[in-house]
């Protein structure tokens, strides 16, 4: 069943379309990946859903969620939706935190905004959330700079999933992490998805990060969707030569040096 439906979404900067006529839907509880190179418009598409585009960019088209077009939603209503029903995590984990607030204060801010809970209950909820992403309760008192990139990304996942949203939009959450931490974060996301049943829209340039967990993959190039299919079909028989290239550039470790095949390098 469709949770969110994007129809003919275009994003323009001064009448130049950067994203053109993008249509797709996200189904309940699925893991949908958008894959593309830098500049393909994948992050803009994801940002448009939550009205997070910069003011110099205009989105046109429709993003339908529970009968409402999110692009036309009043800011106040959008804010209510964000965090409770639709949450984001970003590539820049440092930018997701205020440097002079402790992790605990971030939880406090979030919980006070969205829920009416006593102080002690808020604390318990925060510590439970930290435990759910494999972090110790001590982290509550720490400042962002005292944690590693992987740990911070775990905290932002804990915050994003705190109120059990229907949809988590993950915009390259693993790109800034080393591959070891990034695979751990991916595993964590997959486990939490099992538990909470939320849908994940996962943006990445690296097919290796979605090979294992995604249900469907959507490939973007120069602002357009060139292919969207079920994962196994797409990986096995890509229709578009560009998809084939992306697959060749990110084969699993045991495959023989596909990297150096001439068509990938071109």
């Amino acid at each position, binding site marked *: 069943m469709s949770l969110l439906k994007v129809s003919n979404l275009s994003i323009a900067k001064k009448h130049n379309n950067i994203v053109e006529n993008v249509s797709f839907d996200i189904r309940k509880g699925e893991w949908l990946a958008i894959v593309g*190179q830098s500049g393909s418009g994948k992050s803009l598409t994801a940002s448009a859903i939550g009205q997070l585009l910069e003011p110099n960019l205009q989105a046109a088209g429709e993003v339908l969620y529970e009968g409402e077009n999110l692009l036309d939603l009043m800011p106040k209503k959008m804010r209510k939706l964000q965090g409770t029903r639709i949450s984001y995590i970003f590539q820049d984990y440092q930018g997701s935190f205020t440097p002079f607030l402790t992790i605990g204060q971030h939880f406090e801010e979030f919980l006070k905004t969205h829920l009416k809970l006593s102080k002690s209950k808020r604390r318990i909820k925060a510590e439970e959330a930290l435990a759910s992403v494999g972090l110790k309760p001590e982290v509550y008192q720490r400042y962002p700079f005292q944690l590693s990139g992987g740990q911070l990304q775990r905290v932002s996942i804990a915050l994003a999933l705190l109120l059990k949203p229907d949809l988590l939009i993950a915009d390259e959450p693993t790109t800034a992490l080393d591959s*070891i931490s990034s695979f751990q974060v991916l595993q964590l996301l997959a486990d939490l998805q099992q538990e909470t049943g939320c849908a994940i829209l996962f943006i990445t*340039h*690296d097919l290796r990060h979605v090979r294992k967990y995604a249900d469907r993959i959507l490939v973007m190039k120069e602002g357009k969707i060139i292919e969207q299919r079920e994962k196994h079909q797409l990986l096995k028989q890509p229709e578009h030569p560009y998809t084939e290239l992306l697959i060749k*550039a990110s084969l699993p*470790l*045991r495959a023989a040096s596909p990297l*150096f095949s001439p068509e*990938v390098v071109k």
Partner: protein
Amino acid sequence: MSLLELKNVSKTYKNGVPVLKNINFTLEKKECIGLVGESGCGKSTLARCILQLESIDEGKILLNGTSLHDKNEKSLRPYRKNLQAVMQNPASSLNPKLKVHDSLLEPFRQYGKDAILKHFIYTNEKKFADQLMEAVELPRKLMDRYPHELSGGQKQRISIARSISIEPALIVLDEPTSSLDVLTQAAILKLLDDLREQLELSYLFISHDLSAVNMMSQQIMVMKEGSIVEQFAQENLFSEKRHSYTKQLISLFE
């Protein structure tokens, strides 16, 4: 004689935290050794020590048999031209106020008179710069641009052109492709591999990406918490004998 030899190299931070623990390895001419490990395991610190940007507490670093760490800055200068680096973030390794042309020629202007060129031919700056641009497969017209006008991949190609311009004995590649998207990564790795053949270069290739290391290197070293867990020939990566930590890394990439 090996090109680079590290003997019992150890380093401890001032707060007492050991960062390098008894590192031993040798790197031969025309060889690429891959060094793989998690963030914080000490791989970049090791790179900085080899590049003589940081001091070591114990042990020896020998370049062509000459011990480096006990030299002062002045006597070290002739050796520096043989140690070049390509870093992770190409945006910060190029001076934003210099045009590409000047960034490109900077190492040669600095060290060129001592450099022994075997592959490039220096007649004048313009012709030399053209050769470098050609070696890294960039159009000449980019030389009149500033770094912010280039893409990440183009900037990284310029950093590579700079590092090869004086034909150094050793280039330390510290996560040269981590900030690039997969297709650009593939192209840069291919370029580096070709250049090593053509210019008879030697690399220490540092990365957390085991597949990149596997494709680039003849020898692989795995580092964890400041120690080298094991070192083996690339073709033995999937051998049963591998250390449990290496096996764990491999499983992540499958």
